[in-house]
């Protein structure tokens, strides 16, 4: 099996989530980034979108990030969707292919959001089976991302960090560590973000996501943090990112900004900021190696 997410197959630099509205700007201005990430589902047809991506692909590494496979569905994977992902992967030849620790399909209905799993042995066995199936079908390792979540199930038995680590160990998949999602879920559920990071096996971390989130006021003065990817990365998430790099070493890092999408320059500024953290992590690790 191709170990695509092993360190070195993609430069441990910062990339940016690519949206349609930035296609032309990227093709014209060729910004100095090593890679872009796209949503797999946006390139399952033909026409201009795919033609643009072909052009961008000539100058940049591309990571495919899926939102629709529903790895955690009790009723199994949609073979048509798996086939669509394979077609996009064969066309784009991505450096990374990722999906989520979540589910979206039940009774043949696509619920159009990344829903949380009850963290039980049954759910773990189910998602392990589907990650195995996906990796065998795509003939490559995939990365699985920790979601942000707004609810927990009463019967969940396994902490999410242990669940994710067990998934990586059992299937050989890599982990896409979304630092913003850890921050959001920790805020919503009273978890210790540091405990989450400490439980993840550093060798399995193939990519990091950074994004903005918002805080929503609910009735009774309660709040929930919402992972809406609609603003810049906040200081607390940069700090957690720094902690993550201290533990994992330099890891390819993506800036996600999917709603209220700003001009490309703003995204490049965020990527430059991530790069400065990566630079520190590299020197820190070099120093540690020398000692």
């Amino acid at each position, binding site marked *: 099996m191709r170990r695509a997410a092993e360190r070195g197959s993609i430069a441990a630099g910062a990339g940016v989530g690519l949206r349609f509205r930035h296609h032309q700007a990227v093709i014209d201005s060729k910004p100095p980034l090593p890679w872009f990430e796209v949503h797999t*589902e946006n390139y*399952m*047809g*033909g*026409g*201009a979108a*795919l033609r643009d991506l072909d052009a961008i692909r000539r100058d940049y590494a591309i990571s495919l990030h899926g*939102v*629709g*496979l*529903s790895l*955690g*569905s*009790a*009723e199994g994977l*949609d073979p*048509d*969707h798996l086939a*669509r992902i394979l077609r996009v992967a064969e066309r784009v030849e991505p450096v990374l292919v990722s999906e989520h620790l979540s*589910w*979206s*399909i*039940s*009774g*043949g*209905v*696509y*619920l*159009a*959001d990344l*829903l949380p*799993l*009850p963290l*039980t042995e*049954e*759910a773990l066995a*189910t998602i392990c089976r589907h990650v195995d199936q996906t990796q065998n079908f795509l003939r490559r390792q995939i990365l699985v991302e920790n979601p942000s979540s*707004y*609810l*927990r*199930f*009463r*019967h969940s038995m396994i902490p999410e960090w242990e669940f994710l680590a067990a998934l990586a160990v059992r299937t050989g998949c890599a982990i896409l560590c979304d630092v913003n999602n850890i921050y959001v879920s920790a805020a919503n559920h009273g978890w210790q973000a540091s405990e989450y990071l400490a439980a993840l096996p550093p060798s399995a971390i193939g990519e990091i996501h950074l994004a903005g989130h918002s805080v*929503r006021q*609910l*009735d009774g003065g*309660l709040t*929930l943090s*919402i992972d809406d990817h609609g603003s810049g990365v906040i200081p607390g998430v940069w700090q957690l990112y720094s902690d993550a790099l201290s533990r994992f070493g330099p890891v390819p890092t993506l800036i996600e900004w999917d709603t209220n999408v700003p001009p490309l320059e703003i995204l490049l500024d965020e990527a430059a900021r991530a790069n400065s953290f990566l630079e520190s992590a590299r020197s820190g690790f070099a120093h540690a190696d020398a000692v």
Partner: protein
Amino acid sequence: MPTLFEVQRALRRSFVEGNGDEAAAYILSDGPAPGARLDIYRNTSIGALTTALRLSYPAVHRLVGAEFFDGAAKIFIKTEPPRSAHIDEYGAAFPDFLAGFSPAASLAYLPGVARLEWALSRALHAPDAAALDMSRLFVVDAADHCRIVFVPHPSIGFIQADYPVDAIWRAVLAQDDAAMAGIDLGSGPVWLLVQRLETGVDVMRISKREWRFATQLCSGRALQAALDMAPGLDAATVLAGHFAAGRFIGYRLETAP
């Protein structure tokens, strides 16, 4: 302890059927209530699907306004939720939904505009396919020409409407009030061909006879049978036009019954 299947079924029911009691019983209720937590997901889901519909139906959105569109979309999403995660394919049933949606009944041309927009959206996302080179037909014996069955380009679509929905669509998207005011809703039916070209998706008005011939050719009917449906048509010229525009990507010969 509920099974994974039971938990997912309960959440689906809370989304689609609006009955969240069973799902709420599975959810920890410290802090915000389970219902408020479920609403975060439900609202994200409805928002994402409404956006998908708005991207496929921009002229309908402008014609009815954002508030009306969002309200109609919410009802549509509940009655016709997506069956796959390939969201570009979501919304095929929206024109029929609008046709039966009584609050929109005063805009008689709305379902026609929606059908045109769905054909355009399909064309936009259709897979790429190389056009059939006419020279590949030279090997077909003249006696067999009547048995040729063409494979249409996947972006091809046909619309017949009782109103000039192509003119309405253009005027609405261009926000051209003068053009909109100049449209004669009583000008009679239109026959339209939708296709993706190198330059983008295009809608073309063609004659009823050409439309009938082209729809037959593109629905797996053999050349002679299609010609029989369109008597008096200058078939050589029309076919040359189809080839020049790359509307076919292959052919086969119909076997004798």
